[in-house]
């Protein structure tokens, strides 16, 4: 498949991942479902892999959300600082710890929905726009390789 289409499908996979989080959380907030702990666990693992700095694993396919360069780059575009990614992770962990049922849990769920709606909007926009993905930070790369 030509590279641009391959790249674009990575954005779609990210948008689908967001959708898989947003819907169950919306249902929880509306009181029609319990807290989607399995989904939150999956999200926690994905976010932890980003905050640890190594979302891409050798010898594993990057079909999972937050594994490919395009997906991680989109996440960094939307949540511009590491603190924002951390706060999304903290919210997820807090929700899992709460276990649901309190007003505080509902408000945390709403905050998380907002974060993922923004991420999804950008992922869908990037899928829509056939532009080249922003290249990595070459300055940081050279500095780390001491070739700057």
């Amino acid at each position, binding site marked *: *498949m*030509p*590279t641009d*289409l391959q790249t*674009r*499908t990575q954005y*779609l*996979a990210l*948008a*689908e991942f967001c*959708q898989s989080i*947003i*819907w169950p959380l*919306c249902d929880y907030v509306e009181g029609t479902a319990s807290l989607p702990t399995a989904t939150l666990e999956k999200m926690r693992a994905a976010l932890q892999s*980003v*905050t640890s*700095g*190594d*979302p*891409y694993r*050798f*010898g*594993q*396919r990057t*079909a999972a959300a937050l*594994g*490919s*360069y395009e997906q*991680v*780059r989109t996440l*960094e575009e939307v949540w511009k600082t590491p603190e924002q990614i951390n706060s999304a992770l903290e919210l997820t962990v807090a929700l899992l710890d709460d276990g649901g049922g309190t007003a505080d849990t509902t408000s945390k769920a709403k905050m998380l929905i907002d974060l993922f*709606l923004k991420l*999804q909007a950008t992922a*869908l926009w990037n*899928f829509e726009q056939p532009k080249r993905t922003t*290249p*990595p*930070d*070459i300055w*940081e*790369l*050279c*500095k*780390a*390789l001491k*070739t700057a």
Partner: protein
Amino acid sequence: MQSAQDSLIHEATSLFRLVESIDIFVAEHENLFSYTEATQAFFLHIHDQAAVTRNSVSDIIEKLAQAPEHAAPRYRRELIIHKDRWRTLHTYIKPATDAHTLNLPSPLIQMATEDLRRIPGMEGTAVVVLLTPELMYYHNTPQSRPPSQLAFVEVPYSQGPSFFTNLTIYHELGHYVYDSLADSYNQSTAFTALVAAMSRAFDDMFDESLKTPSTRTWAKRVLDAWTKEVFCDLFALRHLGPAFSFALIDMLSLIGLMEEETEVKFDAEHPATALRLREQLTRLRDDGWWAEVQDLPSEHVSLIARVAGKSESDYFFEFAEKRLPAFTEAFLTIVPFIHALVSDVTPHCKSAAEDFSRRRLEIEDCFLHGVVPSKLLAEGEASSPTQVSMINAAYCFYLTLLPKLMDKLEGQESYNLIHRKKWIEKLEAWTMKGIEDHQLLTATAATQ
């Protein structure tokens, strides 16, 4: 002004119609043409997906009717994702319907399918060919979650029925094999050793100073992409012998990628041609092929030797106008592990060169007399030349003996491109017929 609900119903109807028309388009082609079993399985998947989408979209509209107005954006997103899935899938349908059996080198696809099925865990694999408008071969992974045993390969539409350049599909199938090995719950020792070598190479290249997750991801992906490319080359080479290297050279030349100034250049997706040919040469030597072809009076052979002989110190990887030598140095530590993995995955290819050594001259003799090499086939499989021997003898003949055949024929001049093209096509047809007959014979023997 339309309400949010009306607008959503309008969009849902458009999607419904699109899906319906694709579904009908596929069904019409199924009635008109003959397709491989693999393509038929893909079409079945499309029909299933169409039914699922039609139901989902109807469901969305039903839920929307009962939901409060503020819930509309949520359903809109769901609808957008469905649309985008079909936008992606849409790009697969026409290339798949174009790839009916008259447009394909069917014996080669059959042979590739049988080779894939020899690999443990891939016994049920089938190859779906897509005829692409690009002048390039690709491995393809549709995002619509097709049955996992379907391997998708894009072939330039202009090359569909031809034979020699299509040998490069084995490289693309290598991508499928590599991905399947990565997906396996029970990864082999050779695969885990390769992964460990990649991790080591990356850790040695970067200390903790490379922090941004996306930059780390990008750097890893570069090493991963190079690893896969070399794996795919060697996977193809193990199955096809030097014919794969020759086909690769022909394909790269056709698209202008065999220029001397780019031979040692790595890009973010591919290692340098020099390294690729060097590893192929190593493999050809180890498997006994090189001794058989090294004296061929062919430019392809001398090109392999010359380009493979380029010094490692000439290799370079340039990105955003910066040279990053650490990447190529790191990658070189990974290469031996790729060879080990390929050997581990393809033990059945070990002795292919021996058969070629024994049967080459008689196969070439068939071609020289305009005879399909099927005449060498015998009921007992052991006494028949293998398909790989036929392919390699045909390629060697194509590179060196075509003028000799043409000189024997009245009115045929080897420097006349129209005449030459005609005899290349005949040679390809004889080879494919030989392979097809071999497959028939093997299938018959298996049922007895």
